[in-house]
């Protein structure tokens, strides 16, 4: 609101040249962050930039290798989160640090939080009707985030750190949070605000510190139009313009996968769409809008409450992933660690689905297997220098293994859940091309992505889910980031 103060005020938190390695991987190579009294600083960086490592070091969850961190000019080196709290730095995470099996009062006692200020902040943040003996496990996530924040505020910290805590928070609560944060800063505290949401950052932050590849690459005052500069800094290069998608109209005839009126508790409401052979259908949604549940239902991990799924016109009901696979629906989950046997070889990981059925438990034709897997590895250009253990591969190559597993066994319908999360640009391109290739060969691909810019590059068509409903559908040519974002926020799409 009062951007770009002429001179940075007295630093409350000052981290300079912080480094941290995990084995051979250097996560931080010189990260710096300076927050003065009365300032709100946005900490920004793409996935894998080292943001979370820096957060962990500042909050005492990890210890840094080199560099200095001072709080109010006193050098600190936290041995634990408790030590960081004592020094006056209190974090609030996207995942609330509250114990699900204890009630509110017990959680406060656990953290030695004074009750009266806590109550004050809960009221100020707009949560009503809270009882101290409410069990945490029975409260909605949005309330928990507010409680976690109120607890942090009650500690009267010198430095407050918010890590993506407004994600999927209702708008009115977000407003309250932003207002309270500004108030904290005006009261002379320092606030570190970690978020991907430019509108929020523009509203309350004074400066943005940008990390890339473990180094602080920029520290900019927030002024109108700074977004482009920040994005450039985060990416290290100009964003490539969207590759023109083929934009073919959807195939006619029976859909490969047809979903009609799918509902699941409060997560999915009457979701319907068709996915045709030869098509890549993008799915866009903000975090927690029901996309996880949709993919889990389609992959056979959970059953829908009501609705119908048909494959090639035949109704199907999945009780287990094996049923979905039998119907040709193969799933690549968002978290690679969920899909891979990390300690086993590339070959074993790719070959895995071939042994699932008991009649395939017998002897393996080793030569044939080697040929088949070699072909899949070649097609995906998997870097096989470290193929003894998938654990030792890069994230991009790991992702290729999870996709390659299905390619080696013949793809009919591929369900990709955010396949490019946290992987390098080159591999991302390869994955887009792969999707296009698969579609050209007659496969159908359902492609959820958290990066809106990917839609025109990989997809033919996109649907947008908001609050468990399909709120928009558009061909790739119209799927600009602005259009998708408007729809993803539940705003009407201009037609």
């Amino acid at each position, binding site marked *: 609101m009062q951007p770009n103060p002429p001179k940075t005020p007295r630093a409350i938190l000052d981290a300079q040249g912080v480094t941290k390695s995990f084995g*051979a991987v250097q996560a931080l190579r010189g990260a710096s962050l300076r927050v003065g009294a009365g300032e709100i600083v946005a900490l920004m960086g793409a996935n894998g930039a080292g943001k979370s490592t820096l957060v962990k070091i500042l909050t005492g969850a990890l210890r840094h290798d080199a560099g200095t961190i001072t709080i109010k000019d006193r050098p600190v080196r936290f041995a634990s989160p408790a030590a960081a709290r004592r020094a006056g730095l209190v974090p609030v995470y996207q995942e609330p640090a509250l114990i699900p099996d204890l009630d509110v009062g017990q959680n406060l006692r656990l953290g030695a939080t004074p009750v009266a200020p806590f109550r004050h902040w809960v009221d100020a943040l707009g949560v009503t009707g809270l009882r101290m003996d409410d069990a945490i496990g029975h409260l909605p996530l949005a309330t928990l985030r507010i409680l976690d924040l109120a607890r942090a505020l009650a500690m009267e910290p010198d430095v407050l750190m918010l890590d993506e805590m407004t994600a999927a928070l209702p708008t009115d609560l977000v407003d309250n949070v932003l207002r309270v944060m500004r108030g904290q800063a005006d009261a002379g505290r320092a606030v570190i605000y970690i978020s991907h949401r430019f509108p929020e950052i523009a509203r309350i932050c004074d400066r943005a510190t940008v990390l890339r590849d473990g180094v602080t690459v920029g520290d900019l005052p927030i002024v109108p139009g700074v977004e482009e500069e920040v994005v450039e800094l985060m990416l290290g290069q100009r964003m490539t313009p969207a590759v023109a998608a083929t934009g073919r109209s959807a195939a006619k005839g029976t859909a490969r996968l047809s979903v009609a009126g799918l509902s699941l508790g409060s997560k999915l409401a009457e979701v319907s769409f068709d996915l045709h052979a030869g098509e890549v259908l993008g799915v866009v949604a903000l975090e927690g809008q029901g996309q996880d549940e949709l993919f889990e239902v389609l992959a056979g991990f959970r059953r829908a409450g009501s609705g119908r799924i048909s494959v090639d016109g035949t109704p199907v009901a999945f009780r*287990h992933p094996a049923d979905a696979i039998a119907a040709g629906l193969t799933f690549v989950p968002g978290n690679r660690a*969920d*899909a891979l*046997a*990390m300690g086993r070889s590339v070959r074993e990981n790719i070959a895995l689905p071939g042994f699932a059925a008991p009649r395939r438990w017998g002897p393996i034709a080793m030569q044939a297997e080697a040929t088949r897997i070699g072909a899949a590895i070649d097609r995906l250009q998997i870097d096989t220098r470290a193929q003894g253990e998938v654990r030792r591969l890069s994230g991009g190559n790991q992702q290729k293994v999870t996709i390659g597993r299905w390619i080696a066994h013949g793809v009919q319908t591929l369900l990709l859940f955010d396949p490019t999360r946290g992987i390098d640009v080159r591999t991302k391109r390869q994955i887009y091309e792969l999707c296009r290739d698969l579609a050209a060969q007659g496969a159908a691909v359902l492609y959820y992505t958290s990066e809106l810019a990917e839609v025109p590059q990989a997809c033919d068509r996109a649907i947008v889910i908001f609050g468990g409903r399909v709120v928009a559908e558009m061909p790739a040519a119209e799927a600009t980031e602005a259009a998708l974002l408007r729809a993803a926020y539940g705003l009407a799409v201009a037609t």
Partner: protein
Amino acid sequence: MTTGTVQAPFARIGRLLRDYPIIALLVLLVALIVLLQILNPGIINQRWIGNTIKFAIPLAMLAACQTFTMYTGGIDLSAAAVATITAFVMATQVPHLGDAAGIALALVPAVLIGLLNGFGVGICRVHPLIMTLGSGLIGIGCLQVYQRSTIATGSAIPPVLEWLGTGRTFWLPNGLWLFVPFAALMLFIQRRTGFGRLLYAVGANEGAARLSGLRTWQLYFALYTLSALIAGLTGLLYAGIIRTTSLSLVEPLLLPSVAAAVIGGTSIFGGRGSYAGTIVGALILTVLGTLLTLLQMPEGGRQIIFGGIILAVTAIYMRLTETG
């Protein structure tokens, strides 16, 4: 700053140990034998070697139960009970039914306990350690009831089992006629069959295996039934070696069987290991047993040493996987 790292010598040795545990194990085995020879010169001869192998065989077979269940992150603490039950039922049924039918019948309770374990672990998702501990105790309880009903009928060990258990070909024990094909089969299963691949995969990441279409309960049923059958086979051989049966015949081999698998480099957390290592582990423990007897170590001390070995080896492997 570069991203290159200097690996501590410990880490390098650690990786070697993890990737080729069998080399380190063989070194350890030879070291123990040398130590034995120093402590008691002249003890190492053909007869001693034959005896060591003879007693290592049932241990290595029982340890196969642990090795295979550990691939999936499990364990089979009912193995000794199953072996004991099989041996006891066989010995008491052979006088009635003849050799072949008696042996076949004796394997029925083994299969039943294996199915029970598979049900508990695969369907009810009880931790294998608790499940197999419980099923073993239930099994022994049933055996006690059975014993009272057959107290008068006497028992007999079929000649073929005595030949396997006590006979020698040249100076080598006849048990090898059973064990060599057995070990070859186990190594084949773990390396060259879909079943073996799935065991490792489930141990490394059960979710990934399910994602790949595996109905894990099917695998657990098959695994624990296989384990119980191996235990039953071990019980039959052991009855041939000891030439009698009792209600706690194979019980003393349970803890060493776990230790043999762990020492042999099989991760108790699943996803890693080899039966080859287990075989060497069984030999090491047998030699260690001789050594402890020589040192007149009481039973309590042995248990402490075995427990300590399991703990130490697990902790070391834990560190190795973290640094690797």
